């Protein structure tokens, strides 16, 4: 009985010390990590809608119809001079082949894709990770990347299904499908939101 108490105290003490050490490192690295995330987000937004636009974050993100596709944040895109809505960007989380994929999906008011940008990706290096690779072309002749091929596609009229109107990445069927579904579902949610807001 005595030894049990001793073990508990030893283990508890060691856990307390390591916990304290972790808290210190966490505090030091937190601002750097947060700044990186924010920078990635801002960069992503301006890459998707290049030009003089203002991004207004909605208090409550728009809702997605597919439970596997989560929309965590949404940003209305406004023209700075006319203050008119030109589209919307949604921050989307879809299940990948290994871990959730986080991405930004930008849709113009006419329902076409303005751009797709990956924020977090943990797919297999050399296969699914190519989704994010600016030098991996699904169309080598025209130098179109996997994400690049979505630009200009209409989320209502086009199917956005890999191997039909989307070129899948070789060896990464699940990743290709997850991203395509995410773009399609988030795109449709944005279009229906913009339609309601326009009325």
């Amino acid at each position: 009985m005595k030894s049990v108490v001793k073990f508990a105290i030893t283990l508890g003490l060691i856990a307390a010390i390591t916990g304290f050490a972790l808290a210190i490192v966490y505090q030091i690295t937190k601002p750097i990590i947060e700044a990186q995330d924010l920078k990635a987000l801002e960069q992503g937004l301006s890459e998707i809608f290049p030009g003089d636009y203002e991004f207004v974050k909605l208090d409550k993100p728009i809702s997605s119809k597919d439970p596997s596709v989560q929309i965590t944040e949404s940003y209305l895109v406004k023209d700075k001079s006319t203050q008119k809505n030109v589209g919307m960007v949604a921050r989307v989380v879809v299940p990948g082949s290994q871990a959730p994929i986080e991405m930004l999906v930008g849709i113009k008011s006419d329902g076409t894709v303005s751009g797709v940008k990956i924020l977090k990706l943990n797919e297999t290096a050399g296969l699914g990770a190519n989704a994010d690779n600016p030098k991996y072309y699904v169309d080598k002749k025209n130098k179109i990347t996997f994400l690049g091929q979505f630009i200009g596609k209409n989320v209502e009229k086009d199917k956005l299904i890999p191997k039909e109107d989307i070129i899948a990445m070789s060896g990464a069927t699940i990743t290709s499908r997850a991203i395509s579904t995410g773009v399609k579902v988030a795109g449709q949610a944005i279009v229906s939101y913009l339609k309601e807001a326009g009325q």
Partner: protein
Amino acid sequence: MKKKLNVIWNAIIPNNPVLIISIGLCSVIAVSNSVQSALLMTFAFAMVQIPSNIIVSAMRKIIPNEIRVPIFVTVIAAFTTIAALISQAYFNAVYQIIKLYILLVVVNCIIIGRAEAFAYQNGIFDSFLDGVGNTIGYGLVLVTIAVVRELIGKGALAGIQILPDSYQPMLLMVLPPSGFIMIGILTGAIETYLRKKGGKK
């Protein structure tokens, strides 16, 4: 002095954790398809292996024998989290690719194996040397495999295209099976060397 050097040497070649003892293979296979990933993984490994060896060795007299494993795991887990936070803060691009495997250092058999088999029974300085030796032994294998796999599988080294565009990359080399093949080849080489030297069999 020679004895101290022997501690390092032992962990690199005669008792190489990956090739001879054959532990911790999961992460070796998973991250060895690009040189950048291999280097960051080695860094994370060093950040956990060396300090945890030192701490376990320093506390070996006050750690009760019955609960040594949970204590090892607590110490290793703390250093793993620290390594992950530092990697995320300063090497974010590569970290995002191999995040999972850095977090899995916590259950890497090599680290807990060294804590149990070496650091728990030896002095602080020797344990430090053993940690360094194992890191070199692990990193050397990882980087060697990564160089071959990235060159053949992607035509690149550390993310820089080396072979001309006309080279058709061999997809197998970035997939996990080539990790096993490479480990097999290296184990064969190292065994041949050890047998010739030691005159075994």
